[in-house]
């Protein structure tokens, strides 16, 4: 027996995007947040570097410059009207966060402090600009905490540790979601006029990943099963500096302070790949360069990693070689990069002040996701048909502001700007719409999937399937891709999907059956992996994070467009044009 709840608006996911939406929606309509984690556990809390907004607190800046940098970073695939909204509204959103109590670091005169970040420039001088607002190196943590605090203040209703397993969409109308209460194992049906999906990324389809264990793409997979498409799934960002074998992220800030990549010959190899920006080239470029070194046999010990050097003497040596008068010492590094240095000490047991740090690119951020319009309304196809009552924002959504490659700090901007926009739009919509009836057996489809897993007497362990999936994704749907590799990957994913039908789990109980939920999440990852590989196979060009060795060049003639992929029955791709604006595509050099 399912339990029923009714709300004007529900938000699935309690990360930055979800909480921002909930906060704004709850100001005028009855709103609930459903999250499979306690809100403060959301992965937004892991974000370190900062949130960009052209406040101009320390030096001149304009939101138009921010917009241009974003478009260039996206390799011109971003929709420029969406980027304009992002960068213009970022300013108010950041001020809004400050008013909510976010403890930003301060300038000497008491304003929000800002710092430089990769790819953010003064368009006139072409020099890096101080645009990233930050709270030490815990900006995401503070955003998440602040938004949660405000939700408590405003008595937003939370359903913590409720995992959504199905979205009630039929004929392009959404009536709510179906969720499992993890503590009891009971099914709950949430009926709502407006439903927002803000469930974050899905980087757990790769083995080396900066993403949390919980980022398994449950909701995008649920939408696929309900016949809705996903957009730009081939664009997945690999961050160059993950801790070797673990994937834990070491922020770009390290290289901002002078850290460099070194191969087994002791060379600073980025000089060859990006002569101007060198180690501070964009993320896609650095990740590719690292793997090119590995392929050339220049990985450390012949393995698939290189060193990130932040030993002061090494950093200073390269400052000198570059004619840069700056010098650093151990104390300075400790002060500027406390968390990162701590991560290296705790997880690698080495001291980055005296030893080089083994790093490798790590799966980090999904540029693609659920297609939406500028008001975060979910789109059912490439023509722009709207799914009534369904919204999406945050990393899970694709408006698209990040195009083929996201700029550092822009995800947090995306969360608050489009989260807020979505919340406001949902409330407006919910005020004039009426609650649509849901079928008595609405929960059956989701429940059936779960009980099929629970009762399956099969032979396969979900964990071995997951390992196989992650290994093949690392190999063939990673930084480098080829047509043959992707075709092979799709075949192997399909084989895994077959094996998935033969899984068994140990836990047959109801309460906190994490065995069951993990197995279900694996099913979601398999579906998303298939769509990702298929989208990548369909795009026969290289752009941003998507690099095809067999098509190494950008092809604006044929591919200045977004992919939209369905997976009902078979896989199907359609395309829609990029919305250009002020900035015409040019070659992207760093």
């Amino acid at each position, binding site marked *: 027996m399912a339990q029923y709840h009714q709300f004007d608006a529900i938000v699935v996911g309690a990360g930055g995007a979800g909480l921002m939406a909930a906060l704004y929606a709850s100001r005028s309509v009855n709103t609930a947040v459903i999250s499979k984690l306690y809100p403060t556990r959301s992965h937004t809390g892991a974000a370190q570097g900062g949130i960009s907004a052209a406040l101009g607190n320390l030096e001149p800046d304009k939101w138009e410059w921010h917009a241009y940098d974003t478009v260039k970073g996206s390799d011109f695939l971003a929709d420029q009207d969406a980027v304009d909204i992002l960068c213009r509204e970022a300013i108010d959103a950041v001020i809004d966060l400050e008013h909510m109590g976010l403890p930003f670091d*301060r300038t*000497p*005169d*008491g304003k929000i402090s800002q710092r430089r970040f990769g790819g953010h420039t003064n368009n006139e001088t072409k020099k890096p600009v101080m645009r990233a607002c930050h709270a030490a190196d815990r900006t995401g943590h503070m955003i998440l905490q602040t938004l949660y605090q405000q939700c408590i203040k405003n008595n937003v209703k939370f359903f913590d540790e409720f995992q959504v397993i199905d979205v009630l969409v039929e004929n392009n109308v959404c009536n709510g979601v179906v969720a499992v209460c993890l503590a009891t194992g009971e099914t709950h049906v949430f009926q709502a006029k407006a439903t927002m999906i803000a469930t974050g990324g899905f980087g757990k389809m790769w083995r080396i990943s900066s993403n949390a264990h919980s980022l398994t793409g449950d909701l995008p997979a649920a939408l696929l099963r309900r016949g809705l498409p996903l957009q730009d799934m081939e664009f997945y960002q690999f961050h160059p500096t993950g801790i070797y074998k673990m994937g834990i992220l070491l922020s770009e800030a390290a290289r901002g302070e002078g850290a460099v990549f070194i191969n087994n010959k002791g060379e600073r190899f980025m000089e060859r790949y990006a002569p101007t920006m060198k180690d501070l080239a964009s993320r896609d470029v650095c990740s590719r360069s690292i793997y090119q070194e590995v392929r050339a046999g220049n990985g450390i010990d012949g393995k698939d990693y290189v060193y990130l050097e932040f030993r002061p003497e090494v950093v200073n040596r390269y400052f000198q070689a570059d004619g840069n008068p700056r010098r650093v010492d151990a104390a300075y590094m400790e002060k500027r990069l406390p968390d990162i240095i701590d991560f290296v000490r705790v997880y690698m047991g080495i001291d980055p002040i005296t030893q080089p740090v083994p790093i490798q690119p790590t799966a980090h951020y999904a540029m693609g996701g659920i297609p939406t319009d500028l008001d975060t309304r979910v789109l059912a196809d490439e023509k722009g048909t709207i799914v009534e009552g369904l919204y999406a924002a945050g990393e899970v959504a694709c408006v698209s502001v990040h195009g083929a490659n996201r700029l550092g700090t822009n995800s947090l901007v995306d969360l608050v700007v489009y989260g807020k926009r979505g919340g406001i739009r949902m409330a407006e919509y919910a005020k004039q719409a009426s609650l649509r009836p849901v079928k008595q057996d609405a929960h059956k489809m989701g429940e059936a999937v779960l009980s099929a897993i629970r009762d399956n007497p099969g032979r396969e362990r979900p964990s071995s399937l997951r390992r196989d999936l992650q290994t093949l994704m690392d190999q063939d749907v990673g930084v480098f891709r080829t047509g043959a590799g992707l075709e092979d990957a799709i075949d192997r994913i399909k084989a895994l999907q077959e094996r998935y039908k033969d899984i068994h789990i140990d836990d047959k109980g109801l309460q906190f059956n994490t065995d069951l939920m993990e197995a279900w999440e694996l099913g979601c990852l398999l579906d998303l992996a298939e769509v990702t590989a298929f989208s990548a196979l369909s795009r026969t060009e290289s752009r941003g994070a998507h690099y095809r060795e067999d098509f190494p060049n950008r092809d604006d003639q044929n591919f200045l467009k977004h992919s939209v992929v369905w997976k009902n029955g078979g896989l199907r791709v359609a395309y829609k044009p990029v919305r250009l604006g002020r900035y015409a595509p040019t070659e992207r050099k760093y």
Partner: protein
Amino acid sequence: MTTMNPSAPRPARPIPQGRNRFERAMWLFMRFSGLALLFLALSHFGFQHIIVGTHQLTSEDTIVRWGLAGESITLAQLFWRLYYGVMVLLAMLHGLNGLRQVAYDYLKNKVVYNVFMAAAAALILAATALGVIALIVGVNASGAAEALAR
């Protein structure tokens, strides 16, 4: 708040006292009585047990320090009576409140807690009363002669 001068040192902001002043008072009392006891109890202990030594203790010492009941007392005896009086009062109240804190931790049943604390408070206050009476009255003279004779 926007008009503040951010570089000016921040003045201490006064906070109105809350409704529950008892726990605050007790917290302060524990610390100040503790500080007093640090000197009183340790000096008493050191005097009796180290300088004099338990095995040298006799009731003469008691008489010398307290004075006899019904007789006028010297300044020194007044000092000792006050010294012991303050110490007994502080130690007993300090101990009683300490016991209350411990009991609050472990006796979660309200009735049990109340009964226990009532009994403990009765015992401790009775003992304190006895001690204070003894200090006011002084040593009972009857039998004092034999004691002095020995």
